[in-house]
């Protein structure tokens, strides 16, 4: 494993000047889900972050080829 990981990132809220953002992302090896969220510095609190379509603990280490999706937490009534 190299020093960098390539992941796919999907941000379902305004990010990097777009209404939503999708694309490849390189992150340092050893990055956790929580670390990635901190690095993204998104303006909204209390977001859902999914790793390959599932909630995972914040301390989960990312792997090459992972897909991370950041979404607004919401529910119907």
């Amino acid at each position, binding site marked *: 494993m190299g020093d960098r990981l390539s992941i796919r990132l*999907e941000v*379902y*809220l305004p990010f990097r000047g777009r*209404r*939503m953002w999708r694309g490849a992302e390189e992150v340092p090896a050893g990055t956790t889900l929580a670390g990635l969220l901190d690095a993204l510095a998104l303006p*909204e*609190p*209390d977001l*859902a972050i*999914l790793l390959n*379509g*599932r*909630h*995972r603990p914040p301390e989960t280490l990312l792997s090459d080829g992972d897909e991370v*999706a950041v*979404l*607004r*937490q*919401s*529910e*119907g*009534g």
Partner: protein
Amino acid sequence: MEQILRLDMGTLTHRFEPLPEAYALLGGRALTSRILCDELDPTVDALGPNNKLVLAPGLLSGSIVSSSSRISAGAKSPLTGGIKESNSGGNTGWRLAQHGLRAVIIDGAAPVGQWFIAVISRGECRLEAAGDLVGLGTYDTATRLFERFGAKSALAVIGPAGEQRMNVAGICNTDPEGRPSRICARGGMGAVMGSKGLKAIVVRDPGANIMPDTIDLPMWRENAKVYAKELATSPAIARYRNFGTASTLELVNKLGGLPIRNFSRGQDAQAEAITGLQMAETIKARGGQTSHSCMTGCAIQCSNVWVDPQGKEVASSMEFETNTLLGANLEIFDFDAIARFTKECNDLGIDTIETGGAMGVAMAAGALPYGDVAAVIDAFGQIRTGTVLGKLLGAGAATVGRVLGVREVASVKGQVMAAYDPRVIKGNGVTYATSPMGADHTAGNTIGAKVDHLDPQGKVALSRELQIVSTVLDMLGFCVFARAVYATTAEQFRGLFAARFGRSITDDEIRAIATETIRREIAFNRAAGLGPATDRIPEWMRTTPLRPHEAVFDVPDEELDRIWATD
């Protein structure tokens, strides 16, 4: 002194009774279910004169404290065959509580073909003939009743589906602007109201901004202020104000649990067209309302008003479950179409979830084409006029499956699931299976928990906790979204209670009432003939994997059976 109003539609009489001491701490669902358990033979015909329809605002309803005046409608359900509570916003609960009414109990049945309205104000009630309203949709009905009784009245009305006693029929409550769009939708409560010959209930404006008798008004205001501040600063609440419930679609689609094509797939890129973000952007661009209060005083404002490209109102409100069951589930990824469907449902007075589920099953059988907007609009017309297909759809998804030979019906106790496939959102699967309400997500929605929804571990405990908290909120009259601040303002909820009733109550006592309510409801269901075998997710969902996770529902039956075994 709070009262109960009894209406006997068989004799066309009424009486006001003092609230029994045994019901002093009960409101909303806790009261509707308690009255049904105390007064109803569980084996009665749900559409016969011996069933009772109970309407009850919450314990703390009747003021303009945000989101506190929801209404519960309870009866034996013609859809599930068990006890049912169906909960709604709108102003009916607020007005009933202002008139000092803890509940309205409707018994008996008018002679077939005779229709009435009930007009209620403090200490007064009268029944009036309603022949001129028969066959009208809920919007025309509301327009006529507001002309007669004033625009500040609150209405609970049924539409053509309720008149035809369809299982999908709900009771439509008017919002602050008078739209009959806030529906006690689930379980066929509108059919029960129709079976009694009651077209509408008019709850008149008391003439001043009064609130129910309250022992300590300064204490009430002080606690209400803290609660309101917490709501105003909650990020979760801000999200509902901007995107409504519709942004749940992005999350559930990404999780792979979105019902698509009659629950046959859990994810679809086409769903991008009906996300909360897309909805908010379109509404703003067209000049509609992305935030709107469904009841007077609500600060959460998760409701919205969808308008057409010319800015003309089409429907209120576009909700996640509706967008899914009448959209993705039918392979219709078009907000303008879903808005038309929503307006049809509101005017017919029917449950968008059960109707979307029924149409999805009909599409699986080939009786309707997937993705065909015109065919769906035509089907609504058939429900309105009562053709054979219309009546079949009006009977609900489970009946459609039985008649048309479709095994893949996503229902529990005859009630279709909402927009969370239990093969992925397993906590909701536990709620669907174990709630005495049938497959009703509002009984305990687990989607907000940041847990691995695909892992069956821990989902029984999660569902149990949320079922109890949801029952607490239903009992108090608060919207389920107030749960976002319930934990941080528990002291204020207790304070509001103490201010209103002059007595203290602990969290444990409130939870005990909620748990006891659920246990009574289960006992009712057992006596009605709904045994433990009905507390199950359909077998096909345990064996047919759902793409993309190839997941099945795999919470063990033994765990489901133990959910209410301990305190």
